[in-house]
């Protein structure tokens, strides 16, 4: 894992001191809320429905055990004993007091964390594949490049006031676990003629106007990718719309210019910048890359697994993935237990997971955009003990990518932007299926994603079944969409028809799922593939028939 150097630490410590002073001045009445609001937002501190909410960045979703313990400590000391992992691999606290926020940020800084650039029209947390550095199918670990992007984008003076927020995702596999096609910039690490470089996507995104990104470069060597990103941001910063917040994202610029013309402008900018030496010197690249070296794997770790406990075998089948090193596996910890709140974890659970990561996974964890956690380097021989420990803490739900592994934004239970509640809808849908694991597994891969408003933090556009909460004269209503995907086969979900109330949408989802089971070509055909083969007619008939 990356360790801060003196510059990283000095920057973060200075920001804590600066924010402490800003809070003091606000509380003393020396500055108004209008003056203070942009300052607190630059530090990730929002005012939500019930209290202040702090969004803490987890760079490329990678955490150490001491960091997770600190996050648990913060939830105990400053919040209400729990926190929420988000769809951008961040963590949010829902009950922060303004007067305590500077101390909280100092605690974060003590473990090399912060909440800087988790709000505002700047480059947000760099997200990545939760299996990075461990996946059997990646060309190389993308995290050193994600870390370079983090350093490049942190306090970048030219890009602190963009037309709108800007999100970058980095992967290194053909299997897309980071939804790169739905980011402002998506970077896929590839190898060409023995050389590492990136395929570059621009202009994807969800929100009010969902779009899938365009490939603008098939290969940019890793020695030039920061300059190329800088060129993209420069074109966006210059021509992105600032007159209309709903048309300000880069996807609108790419759409209006056309991908070809946008690419031409980026290439021209890149050509003009290419001799400026903006990319990191090789020594710095090497310094960062060295910190992502493989852990000291046990070369003699047995590659076999005792699956004699049937409950354990089910968990392995559902929540464990192949690792690049023989004798190891990647274990996903579901934060979607029965009756749970998607992505929420208590401080006790966080402490336990930190301990388990230390014991079984070299003290390292990952956060997924699906709001689960990952232990990326577990000896297969340790999986059973890990599973037993997780099960005792209600953390061994074997439902990864199944119908009960639902993404849900905080929705109207917490969020001031939301029009409708997301979490209760997710819970009610899950409740229809969670007591019958065989039924869940028969349904197979099914990604349900729930957003409480058009901003789409719950990724409903990318849901196999997407649910959008809307406001109907002050009451909550829900719109169903089908056929979305945030994976390598990215697609945008299409609205099925008229909306429902809360009970109605749960019934409708169950009808859609049962219709799928009756019309699929066989048990191996995923819901998404059945939808793509048959279109929405059978599902419309099932719901509205």
């Amino acid at each position, binding site marked *: 894992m990356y360790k801060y150097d003196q510059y990283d630490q000095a920057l973060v410590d200075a920001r804590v001191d600066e924010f402490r002073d800003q809070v003091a001045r606000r509380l003393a009445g020396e500055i108004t809320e209008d003056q203070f609001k942009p300052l607190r937002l630059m530090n990730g501190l929002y005012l939500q*429905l*019930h209290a202040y909410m702090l969004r803490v960045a987890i760079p490329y979703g990678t955490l150490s055990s001491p960091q997770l313990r600190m996050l648990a400590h913060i939830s105990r000391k400053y919040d209400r004993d729990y926190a929420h992992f988000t769809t951008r691999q961040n963590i949010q606290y829902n009950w922060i*007091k303004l007067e305590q926020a500077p101390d909280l940020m100092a605690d974060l800084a003590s473990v090399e964390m912060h909440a800087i650039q988790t709000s505002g029209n700047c480059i947000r947390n760099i997200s990545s594949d939760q299996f990075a550095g461990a996946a059997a199918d990646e060309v190389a670990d993308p995290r050193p490049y994600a870390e370079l992007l983090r350093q490049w984008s942190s306090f970048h003076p030219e890009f602190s006031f963009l037309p709108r927020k800007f999100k970058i995702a980095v992967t290194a596999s053909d299997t897309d676990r980071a939804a790169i096609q739905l980011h402002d910039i998506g970077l896929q690490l590839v190898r060409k003629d023995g050389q590492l470089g990136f395929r570059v996507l621009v202009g994807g995104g969800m929100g009010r106007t969902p779009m899938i990104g365009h490939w603008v470069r098939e290969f940019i060597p890793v020695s030039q990718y920061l300059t190329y990103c800088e060129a993209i941001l420069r074109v966006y910063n210059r021509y992105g719309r600032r007159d209309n917040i709903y048309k300000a994202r880069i996807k609108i610029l790419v759409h209006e210019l056309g991908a070809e013309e946008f690419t031409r402008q980026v290439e021209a900018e890149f050509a003009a910048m290419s001799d400026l030496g903006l990319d990191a010197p090789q020594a710095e690249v090497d310094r960062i890359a060295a910190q992502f070296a493989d852990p000291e794997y046990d070369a003699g770790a047995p590659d076999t697994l005792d699956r004699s406990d049937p409950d354990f075998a089910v968990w392995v089948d559902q929540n464990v993935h192949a690792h690049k090193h023989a004798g190891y596996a990647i274990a996903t910890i579901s934060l979607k237990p029965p009756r749970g709140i998607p992505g929420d974890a208590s401080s006790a659970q966080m402490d336990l997971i930190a301990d388990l990561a230390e014991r079984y996974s070299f003290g390292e964890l990952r956060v997924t955009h699906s709001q689960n956690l990952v232990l990326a380097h577990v000896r297969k021989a340790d999986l059973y003990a890990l599973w037993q420990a997780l099960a005792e803490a209600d953390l061994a739900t074997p439902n990864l990518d199944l119908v009960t592994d639902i993404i849900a934004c905080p929705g109207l239970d917490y969020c001031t932007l939301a029009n409708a509640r997301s979490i209760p809808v997710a819970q009610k849908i899950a409740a229809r299926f969670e007591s019958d694991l065989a039924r869940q597994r028969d349904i197979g891969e099914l990604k349900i994603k729930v957003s409480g408003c058009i901003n789409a933090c719950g990724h409903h556009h990318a849901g196999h079944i997407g649910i959008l909460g809307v406001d109907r004269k002050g009451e909550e209503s829900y719109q169903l969409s089908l056929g979305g995907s945030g994976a390598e086969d990215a697609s945008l979900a299409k609205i099925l028809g008229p909306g429902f109330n809360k009970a109605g949408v749960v019934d409708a989802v169950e009808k859609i799922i049962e219709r799928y089971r009756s019309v699929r070509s066989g048990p191996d055909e995923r819901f998404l593939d059945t939808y793509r083969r048959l279109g929405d007619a059978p599902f419309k008939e099932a719901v509205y028939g």
Partner: protein
Amino acid sequence: MIKLLTGNELLTGDVLWWTGAGWSLHLRDAVAVDDPALLARIVAEERVNDPTFIDAEPGNPPVPRTARERIRGVGPSVRPDLARI
């Protein structure tokens, strides 16, 4: 339909309801009020964020018209253990 005055406390972010004599954390203490001069004074004092009038049905407690304000009044519906009652 009546008007209630609500906002969020600067120090804690807590939801506040105007009681006629000050602020309360509890919706049950809210009273009908529709006084632009009061709102202007509170805005000027800068101790309560986003003060605003909302519509509600009279009652004990009053019932805000929108789901949003009803949830603000009680707390997250998915965490009844944290409810303001």
